[in-house]
């Protein structure tokens, strides 16, 4: 399966197999951080960054350690360790080198450690047997797709503040309704890119 062209992977990640509204991964941060566009932006930046880093690291671990020892059943555990490590390391580095960025991004970084969207990207990379370049492109695509939908929902929820919503579906349930609408829109991308 490794001979998929990069453009297809990119478009797949952003639209056709969007991580949030088609695969429904990373829902906790999706609903938690989309109350304001500003924080959604920060979170998305952090996710894009970590997704790409995790794709690289997971590829290295999988190819040079797990495959070598024939321990591919350990991928999930190994990936969790690697992602947690990466997030922590990135946090250290940006706290030291750019306090400004740390203040805007830093609070979202710990949230990412256990984000299923990130784990989803690296597990999919492994399962689809992507090469190094393909993995990285998939990471970028997934990140862009995530950002796109995060900004959509944040903008929508900000506008929805002034709506009169029945008490029983205020807040999170209402956000889920909006999410459904977006998911339905994204479903239309199925089949746009022939597989």
């Amino acid at each position, binding site marked *: 399966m490794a001979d998929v062209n990069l453009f297809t992977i990119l478009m797949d990640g952003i639209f056709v197999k969007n991580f949030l509204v088609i695969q429904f991964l990373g829902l906790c941060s999706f609903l938690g951080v989309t109350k304001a566009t500003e924080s959604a932006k920060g979170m998305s930046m952090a996710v894009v960054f970590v997704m790409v880093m995790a794709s690289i690291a997971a590829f290295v671990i999988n190819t040079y350690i797990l495959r070598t020892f024939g*321990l591919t059943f350990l991928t999930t555990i190994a990936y969790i360790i690697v992602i947690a490590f990466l997030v922590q390391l990135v946090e250290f580095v940006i706290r*030291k080198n750019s306090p400004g960025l740390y203040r805007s991004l830093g609070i979202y970084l710990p949230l990412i450690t256990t984000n299923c969207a990130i784990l989803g990207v690296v597990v999919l990379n492994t399962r689809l047997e992507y090469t190094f370049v393909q993995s990285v492109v998939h990471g970028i695509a997934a990140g862009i797709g995530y950002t796109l939908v995060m900004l959509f929902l944040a903008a929508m929820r900000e506008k929805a503040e002034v709506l009169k919503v029945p008490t029983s579906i205020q807040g999170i349930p209402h956000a889920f309704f909006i999410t459904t609408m977006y998911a339905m829109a994204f479903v239309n991308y199925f089949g746009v890119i022939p597989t």
Partner: protein
Amino acid sequence: MSNIVLVIESALVIGGIGLMVGIVLIWASKKFAVEMDPRVEEIEEILPGANCGACGFAGCGDFAEKVVGEVAAVSDCPLCDFEITKEIGRMMGKEVTEKEPEYPIVLCNGGVHCIDKVEYVGIDDCRAVMMISDGEKGCKYGCMGRGTCVRACPFDAICIGDDRLPHINKNMCKSCSLCIDECPTGVLVMAKESEKTHVLCLSYDKGKAVKAVCEFGCTGCRRCVKACPEEAITVTNFLAVIDQEKCTNCEKCIEECKQKTIRTANHTTGVEATA
């Protein structure tokens, strides 16, 4: 037998990755360590933690940082009582003098006693009402009573009473003055606790015009000026103003005021029911 080998192998690989990662992280935490003043955390711990932003900084953590960085003064947190401020002062090695508590007061007696010139139907907010020809009230200086201050208060200390005026619960008020920043009319002002006597009106209209719309508005009749033994009251533009420096709270002006404009500060204590 091969199962045991596999288990040991997996444990070694995962353990190895973990160990490697751990070592790198320890090295990184040393290499990228950020010098943090331990006082920041200590101060943040004793701060109220309301993150109301009344100090002018982004939350209590930021305030603690600014205090240690000597950007903010020790006493800048309006929520802290004197004990906490003193404690912060002790950490910073600074003397703190006690500040007299201040509470917001409403400089308007209107509410239901002030006639409505129009019937307003629309967004239930003072700022929205203000946008339409100086509001719905007959008096353009007074309180709109639409509760912008109620929503601005992070401590639920304000409520609009049956008289359609805000009531400030002294026991819940933390003197953060966020309501005063939000109030579009300017009828909310901070007053020291010892300053008890106030002219609860801001109308510069002539006496006749005030009387036509409001039961309790100041007409500028000057009776209080004559009554005041300290000469603390002056009338400019048909509105009496009390100089709080000179006022002794003798309440002679309150007795003399025909319009009942001058009153003692109108705080509630949360015991009486207002809704």
